[in-house]
């Protein structure tokens, strides 16, 4: 798979403060790339460098294999975390203006805008001023501004803040739809459940350094401990527990189920497989819950940040 965007050892200092230290990431074409990190880690600085708002002190940014050029802004759609619109300007006028700044012709922008307004059911806002809209409504307009010029790279910084669950879902579906149509998405957020839902690649930035990156699946695989969560139905729980403890590493599990089961976390050695465990368990009890414990993005985030 091609990488649409590559940053190669990008560094940036603000006075004595090092905001980014040799950060290299590669964003595969057609992926949804999660840019994660605690507050103040340097995510926004990296995003601003990709948007050519600030210039890196050293390192290069490549878009489609070529160094970033001033004209490339028309291929990028950026929804910043600190967002807003001209309050006293009318919605239609404003979006057309911003689209033209991105290099679209007025006629094209109008056509695309009609399409989006119908899609998001906001057609009758055209002549309203932003100050007459609610915050969520303004956010929708902002989303349209970001995607209107059909950029091949979309950058969303906390896109769901300010949306109610229904609209957040609407926007999420639109992001997935845009990805399916071929756009590449960089997605910066603190909300790990949306990372889990959307991202296929992630990079974790902590204290100006990139400390982890790759395919989310691969990362999860490398973080899994070969632990299984099981629920067993048996006459005598203590006896069964003793039997299992002789063969495996066991701890008490905590999950919700309808039955009063014996709930255990069982850790396997690298030589053992889940089938070995399952066949052993079925000989001794009735198995009504069997689940591999895979670390969540949130677990990985917290663990990695703590270790660094």
């Amino acid at each position, binding site marked *: 798979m091609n990488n649409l965007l590559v940053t190669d050892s990008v560094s940036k200092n*603000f*006075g004595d403060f090092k905001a980014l230290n040799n950060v290299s990431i590669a964003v595969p074409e057609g992926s949804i790339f999660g840019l994660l990190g605690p507050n103040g880690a340097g995510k926004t600085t990296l995003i*601003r460098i990709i*948007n*050519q*708002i*600030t210039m890196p002190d050293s390192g290069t940014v490549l878009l489609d294999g070529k160094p970033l050029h*001033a004209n490339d*802004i028309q291929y*990028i759609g*950026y929804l*910043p975390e*600190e*967002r*807003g*619109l*001209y*309050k*006293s*300007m009318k919605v239609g006028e404003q979006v057309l*203006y*911003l689209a*033209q*700044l*991105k290099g679209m012709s007025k006629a094209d922008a109008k056509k695309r805008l009609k399409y989006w307004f119908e899609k998001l059911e906001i057609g009758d806002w055209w002549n309203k001023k932003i100050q007459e809209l609610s915050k969520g409504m303004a956010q929708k307009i*902002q989303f349209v*501004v970001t995607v209107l010029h059909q950029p091949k790279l979309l950058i969303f910084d906390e896109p769901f803040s300010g949306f109610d669950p229904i609209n957040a879902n609407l926007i999420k579906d639109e992001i997935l739809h845009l990805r399916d149509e071929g756009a590449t998405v960089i997605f910066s957020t603190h909300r790990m459940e949306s990372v889990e839902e959307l991202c296929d690649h992630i990079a974790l930035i902590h204290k100006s350094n990139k400390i982890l990156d790759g395919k989310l699946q691969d990362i999860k695989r490398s973080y899994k401990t070969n632990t299984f969560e099981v629920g067993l139905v048996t006459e005598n729980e203590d006896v069964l527990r003793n039997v299992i403890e002789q063969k495996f590493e066991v701890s008490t599990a905590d999950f919700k189920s309808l039955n009063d089961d014996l709930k255990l976390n069982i850790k396997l050695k690298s030589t053992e497989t889940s089938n070995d465990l399952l066949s052993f368990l079925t000989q001794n009890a009735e198995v009504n819950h069997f689940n591999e414990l895979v670390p969540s993005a949130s677990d990985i985030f917290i663990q990695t940040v703590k270790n660094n």
Partner: protein
Amino acid sequence: MNHLSLIIKREYLTKVKNKSFIVMTILSPIIMIALFAVVAYLSQLNNNKERTISILDESGQISSIFKNTENTTYNSLSNISLNDAKAQVEEKGEYGLLHIANNEDLDEMSKSIRFYSEDTPSLTLISSLESKLEKKLTDLKLQQGGVDIEKIAASRTSIDIAQESYLGEKTSKIDNVVKLAFGGFAGYMLFMFIIIYGNMIMRSVIEEKTSRIIEVIISSVKPIQLMMGKIIGTSLAGITQFVIWIILGTLLMSIFSLVFGVNLTEMQTPQQEMMQQAVQSADVQNQMQNVMAAIYNLPITNLVIAFLLFFIGGYLLYSSLYAAIGAAVDNETDTQQFMLPILMPLILAVYVGIFTVIEDPHGTVSTVFSFIPFTSPVVMLMRIPFGVPLWQQIVALLLLIATFIFTVWFAAKIYRVGILMYGKKPSYKELFKWLKY
């Protein structure tokens, strides 16, 4: 370039379509003219009050000099005692009584002149009476000394030194007044323009920061494009406003004159009346011709070109600083500490312009200040009507352009960093640090 024109267009249209801008554009000249009209009307009303002054001239030599005018009637009394006269004047409700006691000694006589009235008399009236009496008594004294007044009148000479440079350029006092008026007008226009529209630019930068749209815009255009677009767009809106003001003002003025049948420009105030008495009518015509000649003699081409160049240069220089201030702060109240360093050179320029250029347009102080870029637009514009060598103008202009490029670079740096900074009010030290980002 395409971006720049888009930004200019938006800035211009939002300014021009703004309600308060429209209201200001239309109301300002109306208010100005109305105010002017009210003041003129009131002073005319005051002046129009007809008054009668009785004169009790016991010497019988003087009362003839008081001739009735439109507003003032002089009523000569005779064969009546001072006390009776006072009572009579008071009873009739006249303005006052001028009493001239008879005395052979003119010095004694001049000391004994009194004016009786109920209220304190108007200052202009008293001085006008004084000047008439002085003239008459001087004449009488001269006559007493055996001098022929006719001869003195005939030998009175009026001098207006004709000035000419070695190159044959003719000038005169009136020329200088006209030049000062031109230079002062140009300098003052620039000063007003910078203050009004510089502030407007600053506010519009702050607006983009507070509405947080700035980052969206900056991801599409370069900060310097945005800044220049703002400056140019706002200036165009300013020029539009100025032109409308001038057109509307002239229009209202003529309508006003037509409707009320008064010519505001010729409306007489007591002061003007006095001045006219001082100047002989033949001289007035002569002076008008001189003024016209003086205007005609001005280096018009040089003036217009220099006005445009220095006006644009000076305006851009200051407005880029205003834009930088707007970018550095979060709200308008925080701008105060940065405004002073901008206003100081501007105010200095106006004062230096007014005081030193009048004294000596080519003196050291005015020459030096007409080279310093932050004061040169105002001071040089004031000097140019007096004839400034071309090389000086060019050097000053080059210095101005160089400084302008430097300030735009400087302002763009501050702007680029500042627009993305929120929260705290920056200190000068921090601004300096931003330059290195």
